[in-house]
């Protein structure tokens, strides 16, 4: 049965111990590539001429857009892992979405902060209930809720399963939230104010943006693999401590 053989191969690959081995081998490379990409991206984003005002603030986009993209991608990674938890009950999937949540929250925070900093010179206030910023803010709240949920439960297996359900329900809801926030925004504000990205982006701005997006994505994956490794270690420590406690109890009982 070749299919089963392939499946066992796959699960072997996803076995925590193998994952640790793989992680320690590729992490230095990933970190290196990330650093190089950031060096190139930062150089490009400051090298281009930016005398006129739009060109100045467009540099904020080089950080804001990749962070906003990551806030979405991170949630997709979590949703995929959630399926892994619920359908295949794979321990690595549990670890994956637990490790990704704080990363997603951090990148969402970057997107919010830079969005606000972009808005201040554009709109004159620090916060505008602009459709895109509002959606990102709601996403931020969802990340924080998931982190809080994970922290509130003692049993990691149960925590992983229950938060998986919530991640998936949230994932299905994101388009609806996005749509409704857009609707609400057009209702209350003239649409012409918001012109982030879109067709106004000149092709000279495209390259730095692309490189920075790839750099941020690499940063995310590097941190994700490292955080997953930490989480596996954490669980290993907790399992061994638990076992030590149980062993001590058993020898005590035998002694009495």
């Amino acid at each position, binding site marked *: 049965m070749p299919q089963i053989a392939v499946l066992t191969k796959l699960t072997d690959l996803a076995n925590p111990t193998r994952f640790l081995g793989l992680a320690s081998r590729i992490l230095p490379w990933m970190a290196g590539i990330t650093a190089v990409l950031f060096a190139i991206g930062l150089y490009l984003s400051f090298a281009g001429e930016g005398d006129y005002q739009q060109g100045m603030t467009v540099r904020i986009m080089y950080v804001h857009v990749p962070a906003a993209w990551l806030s979405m991608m991170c949630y997709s990674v979590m949703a995929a892992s959630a399926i892994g938890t*619920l359908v295949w009950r794979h321990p690595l999937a549990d670890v994956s979405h637990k490790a990704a949540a704080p990363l997603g929250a951090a990148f969402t925070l970057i997107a919010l902060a830079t969005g606000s900093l972009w808005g201040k010179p554009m709109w004159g206030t620090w916060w505008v209930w602009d459709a895109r910023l509002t959606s990102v803010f709601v996403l931020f709240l969802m990340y924080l809720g998931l982190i809080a*949920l994970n922290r509130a*439960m003692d049993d990691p297996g149960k925590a992983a399963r229950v938060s998986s*359900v919530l991640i998936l329900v949230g994932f299905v809801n994101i388009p609806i*939230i996005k749509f409704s926030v857009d609707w609400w925004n057009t209702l209350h504000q003239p649409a012409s104010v918001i012109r982030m990205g879109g067709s106004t982006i000149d092709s000279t701005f495209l390259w730095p943006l692309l490189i920075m997006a790839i750099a941020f994505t690499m940063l995310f994956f590097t941190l994700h693999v490292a955080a997953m490794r930490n989480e596996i270690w954490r669980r290993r420590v907790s399992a061994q401590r638990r076992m030590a406690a149980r062993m001590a109890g058993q020898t005590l009982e035998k002694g009495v």
Partner: protein
Amino acid sequence: MVIALLFRDLKLSVRAGGGALIGVLFFTTVVAVIPFGVGPDLNLLSRIGPAIVWIGALLSALLGLDRMFQTDREDGSLDLLLMQEHPLALTVLVKCLAHWLGNGLPLVIASPLLGLFMNMDEVAIGATMLTLLVGTPALTFIGAVGAAVAVALPRGGLLVSILVLPLAIPVLIFGVSASYAAVQDPAPFMPPFLILVAITMFFAVLGPLGAALALRNAGD
């Protein structure tokens, strides 16, 4: 038969007292403190009225939510409900309906009175009541997922509200939009109202499915 569950839960919500009454009381109190915050300017109140009533209803709907499955878990009934494959999502749907009839419907019925407090005119009151009637079931359905998650938590309560509120934003947006559209001339009433209906129907499927999945996975 699953219908038996509907009647049992309704009986309980009437007899165990509290649930519906506390929800309505909270709703009234929230709406009643608003004028103290924004001042007794009747024009302002009538302008923000539909939004305030909706937000009050949203918060009150969340209030009783974490008890939806918790009471059944405490006395062991939840185990027996889980063992029957009616299927489980249908069982949850029936529980949602019972919960809405016991907790959501009283809010809808109380809303015209609060509309009067907010100096809203008849059309606005009618529109708000209608949108609440259509929208509050959606809050119960999506809240069921949070309630099912709360079953696994040592202390659910507040966390459930935090988890559910972001998901309830679309309901709030379209509920309030439709209420305003009924009073303010240029905006048409039907599009946001129909979208609200669609959201409720969507959540009527998603909520019970998600809650059933969470209940299955929260077992210990």
